[in-house]
């Protein structure tokens, strides 16, 4: 059958996730909060258990609501520990997600006695390779793309709009909060709205394409871009570019060798990072040599 349509849609969906992640990830890397994605992938567990207990259902949308609430809660807690309790960003993230995950494990053991399969892996996280099974088809056989794509495309638009409109505020608060405060920019507003958006988009991306892909794309492409430039706009643009490159190359490697698509995409992203790292080391050395010679 017309397999190439499915391939194209997988790549388009992965690239959309990659761009959403690269835009948000760039701010996260600058704010030393790159691991927030990983944190959320764990801390949604209590949300899932509670959502199940309230609704008695394991349907995706119910799980999604529970997960989204706890995704936002995770970021509120991280921000609180970081800003109000003066914890470092990494410690705030570590405390928050391990604690929430542990609460989830206990809730699970207490209320279900381990009697049902109820964890994010099997009730919430999607899988990029499976998105084309859930199709949107109109006019009998006209394929308009996987449901997952139309689910995360609005998120991408929202992220794009928010970061374009609020670029100045986000930029200044990411680099120097004291300077931002002296200009009368509200740090709290930008922090919380950015983090709320991160929660929403990561949870929705997890649901559509799986956790490892999102966590990887949130950190690695922006980090690669960070090596090459000191300009935020260029960093975001390069992050998106590396994310799309990883999606395309990773997808075809996975297809050719019959491997996990998310695994291959994240591996390629890592390789792109390595290439950039070597390039930036060589460049900084040659710069130093030039300055010594002068």
């Amino acid at each position: 059958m017309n397999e190439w349509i499915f391939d194209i849609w997988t790549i388009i969906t992965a690239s959309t996730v990659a761009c959403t992640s690269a835009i948000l990830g760039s701010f996260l890397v600058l704010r030393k909060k790159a691991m927030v994605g990983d944190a959320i992938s764990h801390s949604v567990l209590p949300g899932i258990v509670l959502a199940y207990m309230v609704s008695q259902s394991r349907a995706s949308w119910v799980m999604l609501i529970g997960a989204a609430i706890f995704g936002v809660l995770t970021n509120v807690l991280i921000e609180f520990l970081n800003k109000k309790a003066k914890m470092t960003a990494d410690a705030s993230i570590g405390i928050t997600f391990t604690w929430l995950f542990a609460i989830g494990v206990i809730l699970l053991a207490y209320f279900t006695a381990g009697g049902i399969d109820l964890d994010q892996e099997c009730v919430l996280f999607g899988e990029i390779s499976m998105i084309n099974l859930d199709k949107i088809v109109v006019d009998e056989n006209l394929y308009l793309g996987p449901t997952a794509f139309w689910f995360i495309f609005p998120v991408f638009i929202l992220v794009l709009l928010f970061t374009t409109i609020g670029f100045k505020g986000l930029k200044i608060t990411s680099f120097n909060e004291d300077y931002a405060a002296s200009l009368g920019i509200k740090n709290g507003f930008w922090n919380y709205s950015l983090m709320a958006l991160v929660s929403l988009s990561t949870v929705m991306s997890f649901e559509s394409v799986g956790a490892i892909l999102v966590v990887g794309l949130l950190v690695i492409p922006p980090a690669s871009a960070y090596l090459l430039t000191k300009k935020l706009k260029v960093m975001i643009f390069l992050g998106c570019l590396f994310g799309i490159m990883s999606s395309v190359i990773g997808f075809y490697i996975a297809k050719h060798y019959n491997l996990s698509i998310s695994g291959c995409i994240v591996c390629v992203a890592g390789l792109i990072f390595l290439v950039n790292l070597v390039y930036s080391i060589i460049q900084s050395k040659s710069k130093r040599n030039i300055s010594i010679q002068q």
Partner: protein
Amino acid sequence: MSMGLLLLQSCRLEKKAPGEKLLIVCTTGMLGDVVENICGEYADVKVIMGPGVDPHLYKPNPADIRLLQNSDVIVHNGLHLEGKMGEIFEKLDGEKIVIRWSEGIPENQLLHATEDENSHDPHIWFDSDLFMQGAQYFTKRMGESDTINAQHFKKNLELYLIKVNALEEKVSKMIDQIPVEKRVLITSHDAFSYFGRKYGFRVRGLQGISTVAEFGVKDKVELVNYITKNQVPALFVESSVSSRSLESVIEACHKKGHKIKIGGTLLSDAMDEKGKLGGTYLGMIEYNIQTILEGINE
């Protein structure tokens, strides 16, 4: 504009030519084997979860997805065995023929995994009566969509049911060799409830159905007490679950002065390699009973 329309037109999905063999894709090996027996000559039957794969942890690779995409019929277990994938299958209903095996089983015959009314134990293949009700439902649904071969499917099912009955007779004779008080089955996770109900075994698992909530300290102590009190001679490892947690139970029993050993490896959530005894559905039942018999009666 016309370019765009042309592009849109090329996004139309092609229909399969009539007269081709149906492609039936099954999730587990047990389903695949029974389906193969019922309509093997008239359809291509493929399985995506191969030998030794834990359905709870299964992740599809691109070749599996291609199979699912090209399939005409998808057969899945249901009762949340396939997790989120089951939900996706349900959405494919209409585009393909999607048959949920457990739909053929009346709800009052299913066991609950917890006190909770909405969740059922998905391990229905351990009770061949239940599993064959699923097979009957499958045959009926297949007959509705492939009316030409419907009679063949029915005939094949009848032949298969005779084989099942023959095996069950053989198996019940084997179980008669185990004294009633020794009919205790201890495994690493709760997969054997239907098995216990059918063959009159008391069943205990260290872990629940879900593998995320690890076993609690109390679970282990209770299990060890149960074993020493009832003088259980052997416990059993599952082919798709790690045996480490069970080894700690054995150690604790030894400390309390009760000698217990690993009786063997049972096939719980997946069948064995093709060609071995446990490589078919009926072979899997026989293999498990044989292993338990040898493990307990040694």
